């Protein structure tokens, strides 16, 4: 035990460890907030699809030799999110098919571009780290940490501001639209927030594991809690806890950061499921 503490104290002195923990907490907080909405609106796959789009955008950025790929990735992902959500009922290609097309297409184009234009010999290593989250969370610069902090604060503020509207639109879109709620505007805002969260989360867990980060805390919280408010608060706390735990374990045991966090999320899901099954949930 003392050995572990000593090791942690040692690591705490390095700024990159502190940066990693700060960014980890922020990203997991943001990604858990809209998890409930995404799961219930059957948007789980939009998270998956968009993360592949972000992967494609990163490939384009690396081909163009952009030193800071964040703005380009953010722009392309937001545009795709809007394209997916705002085609609505009039689209010729609907819902899951559209998501699948964009997702697989972006993944393939991204890999193709990297294969054709990247001079680096370690191509599969590059792809693997983009997909599964690299050590990049441990190599964050101060600017990246600042950008991430600003975006996270904006996401949390937007969520608090639109909390009741998100609830109304998610629970019953027809009723909301019929009684004068601007559902299209709020769906648009939700899409933008989701895109921002996904681009943020790519740094932490990579594009393949983003869905897990968004969905697991919400699903775990829904096993136990019964009101929208308590589920949201619980999934936020749970998500932050799992990320901290995952990052600490990965530092101590030398495991990949992203997969360790998701593994922690999965364990908590089973713990919460068992708790919910035994106690029948908390009526709060």
């Amino acid at each position, binding site marked *: 035990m003392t050995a572990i503490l000593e090791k942690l104290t040692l690591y705490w002195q390095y700024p990159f460890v502190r940066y990693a923990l700060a960014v980890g907490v922020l990203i997991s907080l943001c990604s858990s907030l809209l998890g409930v909405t995404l799961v*219930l609106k059957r948007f789980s796959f939009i998270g998956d699809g968009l993360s592949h789009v972000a992967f494609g955008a990163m490939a384009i950025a690396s081909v163009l030799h952009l030193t800071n790929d964040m703005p380009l990735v953010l722009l392309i992902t937001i545009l795709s999110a809007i394209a997916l959500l705002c085609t609505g009922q009039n689209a010729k290609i609907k819902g899951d098919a559209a998501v699948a097309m964009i997702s697989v297409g972006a993944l393939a184009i991204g890999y193709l571009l990297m294969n054709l234009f990247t001079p680096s010999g370690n191509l599969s290593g590059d792809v693997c780290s983009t997909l599964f989250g690299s050590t990049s969370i441990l190599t964050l610069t101060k600017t990246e940490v600042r950008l991430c902090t600003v975006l996270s604060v904006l996401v949390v503020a937007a969520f608090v501001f639109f909390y009741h509207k998100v609830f*109304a639109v998610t629970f019953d879109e*027809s*009723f*909301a639209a019929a*009684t004068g709620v601007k559902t299209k505007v709020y769906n648009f805002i939700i899409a933008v927030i989701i895109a921002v969260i996904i681009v943020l989360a790519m740094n932490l867990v990579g594009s393949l594991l983003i869905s897990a980060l968004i969905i697991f805390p919400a699903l775990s919280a829904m096993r136990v809690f019964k009101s929208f408010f308590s589920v949201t608060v619980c999934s936020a706390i749970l998500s932050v806890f799992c990320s901290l735990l995952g990052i600490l374990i990965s530092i101590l045991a030398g495991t990949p950061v992203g997969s360790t966090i998701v593994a922690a999320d999965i364990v908590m899901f089973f713990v919460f499921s068992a708790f919910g099954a035994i106690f029948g949930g908390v*009526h709060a």
Partner: protein
Amino acid sequence: MALITCQDLCLGYNGQEILHDLNFEVNSGDYLCIVGENGSGKSTLMRTILGLQRPFAGQILTGDGLRLDEIGYLPQQTPVQKDFPASVWEVVLSGFEGGCGWRPFYTKAEKQRAEENILAMGIKALRGRCYRELSGGQQQRVLLARALCATSKLLFLDEPVSGLDPKVTAEMYELIEKLNREHGITVIMISHDIGAALRYASHILHIGDRVFFGTNAAYRESGIGTFFTKGGEAQ
């Protein structure tokens, strides 16, 4: 002036017209039942009046200071709601969202009205319960309380008793009648239940191959409803 007037309304979906030149009006205090066979366009008519889709032609006029977004609406249950973690209180309160505009939180007055509506629907004891764990009849009362938060003038009910057992159905009809009689709320109800329509409604709109609009008594005389009332011996 009538609360809602539909003039020469043509409507349908996917570009296909299913109803044309529909004329009727709803006055304050009316209890209108919309009846008709499956596929006759009842739900499309409702979606059009609620502004969820556009009419092909014709217009919907409102009067007595009613805005189209001031219609309280009791929709049919959606699949999303079956596993939605929400307390009764949260669901009822969300009825005010349409009137909020960009304001992020509910006011004290709105919370007070939500409490009153919960009381009026007799679901005070369920206030903190989880919506998805309630029985069908209880869920309808919750949604009715939410609809009352969105309006104090006009309620639009889409088959409010589908899936309920006879006892709960009767209670539901009594509750709706009470809202109409005592609270002075105008009711428009889509129903398959022609018996209930004839018992409670002041006016009937029958749509399908033959269209009828008029008072309950006129509808009984017209004989259009015999297909329903005599148990469907036609065809």
